[in-house]
């Protein structure tokens, strides 16, 4: 499918048409920041945001998710047997997701879908979500996506990529899922070569606007123990208060915890987001904790994202340069500084 055009005035109609098939999520400003929420009024869609405070990963990996249910009622023949909790995966479309967050989902995907094990909930949920991305005309001063195999108009992970050309949006569809979406949205006006050229120029301009860069070329070649034993970790880690803010905002963080919760004779096995920053993340029942000290936990976070993931999957770092951790770390621990220290 070639590039299509959506006139800005037409966008509400497109969304209205999509609502018939999908649950439509759009960026909504509430309490001072943006989050992806279900579309209420298609006439009032605000795409003027930079990015959402929390990444949209919760639409594929919910913060709390019921995995299984069980009964502890001895009278039941299924007592103590763990069973699948019924779930639905209604088709969703996320309108306005940024290329960094979409690429992040692909980076996380290898963790949940690999030859040995396939996480059924992640896979089904990701399949049910169509990503209608919006490229960034004005990247943030803290964005460094172009240094990490991404960019303000990167296609990876997106089903549709929108270029905001002012009066209209140019829609490029890297996947079949995206083509289907545009068909359902009744988007059929082809883009002429002039507009296509404008879109490409917009991409180049946006990439040049990225002011923040990090070096990554040496990370793969470095010896893991040299990095692990490096002297700079104490300095990097001092300010850290081991809160989970960075991990919970980060689009490429995926660690989770599994807990059983019981009320009377009924129970659920629940999966919740967890964080390597939390002191009890790795504590053994015996009391032994390989990462008892704060500096060990801080080091783990950066080593995992910038080294272990690189070595394990040979697909670059587990960071898309979205800048959320940089902007919201209460003590200003800056991952860009750590990139520089590790790549030195």
């Amino acid at each position, binding site marked *: 499918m070639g590039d299509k055009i959506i006139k800005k005035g037409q966008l509400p109609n497109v969304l209205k048409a999509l609502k018939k098939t999908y649950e439509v999520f759009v960026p909504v400003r509430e*309490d*001072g*920041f943006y*989050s992806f929420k279900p579309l209420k009024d298609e006439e009032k869609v605000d795409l*003027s945001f*930079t990015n959402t*405070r*929390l990444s949209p990963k919760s639409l594929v990996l919910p*913060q*709390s998710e019921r995995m299984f249910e069980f009964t502890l009622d001895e009278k039941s023949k299924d007592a103590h047997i763990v069973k699948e909790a019924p779930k639905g995966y209604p088709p969703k479309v996320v309108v306005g997701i940024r290329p960094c967050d979409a690429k992040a989902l692909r980076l996380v995907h290898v963790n949940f879908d690999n030859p040995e094990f396939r996480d059924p909930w992640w896979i089904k949920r990701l399949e049910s979500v169509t990503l209608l991305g919006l490229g960034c005309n*004005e990247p*943030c*001063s*803290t964005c460094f996506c172009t240094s990490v195999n991404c960019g303000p108009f990167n296609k990876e992970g997106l089903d549709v990529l929108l270029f905001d050309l002012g009066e209209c949006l140019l829609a490029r569809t890297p996947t079949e899922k995206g083509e289907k979406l545009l068909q359902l949205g009744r988007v059929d006006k082809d883009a002429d070569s002039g507009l296509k050229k404008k879109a490409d120029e917009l991409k180049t301009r946006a990439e040049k606007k990225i002011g923040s860069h990090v070096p990554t070329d040496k990370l793969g070649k470095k010896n893991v123990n040299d990095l692990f034993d490096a002297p700079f970790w104490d*300095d990097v880690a*001092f*300010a850290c*208060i*081991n*809160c*989970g*803010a960075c*991990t*919970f*905002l980060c689009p490429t963080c995926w660690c989770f*915890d599994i*807990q059983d*919760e019981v009320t009377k004779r009924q129970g659920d096995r*629940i999966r*919740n*987001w967890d*964080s390597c920053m*939390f*002191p*009890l993340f790795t504590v053994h029942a015996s009391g032994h904790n390989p990462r008892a000290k704060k500096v060990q936990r801080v080091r783990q976070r950066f080593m995992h994202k910038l080294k272990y993931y690189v070595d394990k999957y040979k697909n670059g770092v587990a960071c898309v340069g979205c800048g959320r951790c*940089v*902007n*919201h770390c*209460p*003590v*200003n*621990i*800056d991952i*860009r*500084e750590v990139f520089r220290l590790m790549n030195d």
Partner: protein
Amino acid sequence: MEQTDKISEIAKKILEEKTVDLVIGFKKGTLPTMREPVLIKDAERTDQLYWDSFCFINLASYLPKRQEKIGIIAKGCDSRNIAVHIVENQIKREQLYIIGVPCKGMVDRRKIIPLLDGKKVREVTEPDEDITVRGDGFEHTLKKGDYLQDNCIRCMHRNPVIYDALAGDLVEERKDPDPYDDVKAVEAMGSEERWEFFSNLIKGCTRCYACRNACPLCYCPACFVDESDPQWVGKSIDPTDTMTFHILRAYHCAGRCTDCGACEQACPVDIKVRFFTRKLNKDVLDLYDCEAGLSTEERPPLDTYRPDDYDEFIR
């Protein structure tokens, strides 16, 4: 700011003279409105130290259980938390050299953002009582007093209560008629309305525990929410569990909280968690005439036991 110079000067001296083994303060961060807590052992590096109205983290959080002799920068609220730490045996007075900084309030970077219309700040300077914010194609000069953190607007203890040296002249304390007007507004609500108010307040909570970790009072090796044996609080974002966490944490801080605001500033989803703690601060003041951290001689009211307590239930 002259306070920066004075702090560096004092820090250099106490390191050179080996009065302390290390100094904990702030250095300039990588973002114009952020400062990063830093630990300095080398007298030559004290020029890194920086102080301005964005130093909102409470440095007393870095003290518990440290064994060294420590020089620490403390504004009014921080110094009261240091007093609380001393009373609660988390650090010894003899270990500390407190560089007190009289403070007229920290600027809330989140209050400045709406002015910027989506544009990003490149530089921030503070000429006198003003604050100038510069970016691409804009410059705003604002009255600092209009953009203070919510806790600083009502601060009743701007000067450090305990210190070994001052990095600036003492400032006039606020003569606020009613520092708890915000709390009274919530108290005046009916119970259903109040429940709605608090449920709404924490609906976006992600249980990241940034508020707890930024708080100098929360130094328990295993917080009650982390315990699994027995499990007091569920770990999911179930609203009941989330409300339990916030209410119980506020109770654990009652009578010890100095309203430094680090919790609110650390929250990544901008929740005004101080509504929980301030209510209890007011209650402790009303019931026991106590404010946290004003003295190293007095124990917090909720951990004081006296056989001659006038309340029979506790005897």
